[in-house]
């Protein structure tokens, strides 16, 4: 079937893009040209189907054998053997376990910070109970509020410098006689308690409280 010169007008006619003159000329033509009319009918169905179902052309259809997808699949398949794929899967799973389960557990429950003996910090605190005011005599014991179970407390007593340091799991401590002997009435002292968790991390620090022992 030789090509009719009017054939090129088919799309323009159906998409309403022709000038009025071309449109009429083409209409007259297809009343006379059987070949053009057949093509026109066919093209009309094609265009209306496209206009009514654009998704057919824009969607990637899973069921169609898309050549690009097929090639990609084949390439991936040739890159990895089944064993390698399985290994990759197991590795990924292990990594996931490490990221989701192990790493968070390793994190300390409280911030890791270190203090020199002269420093105080804000934050989680220990309330000191006694002595917090001036004393008539050298105190025999020191007491503070309990923070919880399984906590180790470190008590430090200062005059101008560190006088005594001790650790206990109780929330009170009795001052040993040899420390008492070094404390002098009329002098000012201060004390502080630090709390450590089971793994040795500092979890709380009290403020430094000063007391004066009355002169005799």
């Amino acid at each position: 079937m030789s090509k009719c010169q009017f054939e090129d007008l088919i799309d323009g006619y159906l998409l309403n893009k022709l000038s009025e003159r071309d449109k009429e000329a083409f209409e007259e033509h297809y009343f006379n040209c059987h070949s053009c009319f057949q093509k026109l009918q066919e093209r009309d169905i094609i265009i209306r189907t496209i206009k009514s179902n654009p998704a057919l052309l824009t969607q990637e259809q899973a069921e169609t054998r898309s050549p690009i997808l097929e090639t990609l699949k084949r390439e991936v398949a040739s890159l990895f053997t089944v064993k390698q794929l399985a290994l990759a899967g197991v590795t990924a799973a292990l990594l996931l376990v490490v990221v989701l389960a192990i790493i968070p557990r390793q994190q300390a429950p409280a911030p890791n910070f270190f203090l020199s003996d002269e420093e105080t910090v804000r934050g989680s605190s220990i309330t000191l109970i006694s002595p917090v005011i001036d004393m008539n005599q050298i105190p025999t014991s020191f007491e503070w509020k309990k923070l919880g179970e399984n906590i180790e407390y470190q008590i430090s007593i200062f005059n101008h410098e560190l006088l005594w340091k001790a650790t206990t799991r109780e929330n009170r401590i009795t001052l040993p006689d040899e420390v008492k002997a070094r404390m002098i009435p009329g002098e000012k002292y201060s004390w502080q308690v630090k709390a450590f968790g089971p793994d040795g991390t500092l979890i709380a620090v009290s403020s430094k409280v000063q007391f004066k022992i009355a002169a005799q």
Partner: protein
Amino acid sequence: MTDRLDRDIQDLVVRYRPIIAFRVRKALGTQNTDCDDLVSEILSQVLEKLQSGEFRGDSSLGTFVYTITSRRIVDYIREKTKVMKFAPEPEPFPDPQETLEAKEMSDRVKKALSRLKPKYRQVLYLYYYQELSREELASELGVSTRKVSELVNYALKLIRKELKS
């Protein structure tokens, strides 16, 4: 003699009815219920005029039928606008459902479209759905207009193959 005339009439109807129907539907929209009546009316007008000797062979028979069809369509629209002020605007691209044949063809086209390679689908989408010109499509795809025509024609060829199978 009457037998021959009957056969001629038959041939004429078989040949021109679909063309007239196409022209009428294009002008009025497939949803218009007057279409079938109008097509029948045009056909009988053609036969009448042929029998009364109005067709003298100055033009081709096709042009003669075309002229009658166009006039009747213009008349119809004029009648409608008298009553409704505006002629009903036909839906531009109705889903092919008007006849069983159109529906079947459309189903085949759908099947063919879904089997096309992505590059042909893209070209058809831009050219027929978005109505980009061949020139616009060429610059969009970074190819020559000749290449665009080739792509469109090849995609149509693939669809036609499905329609004929």
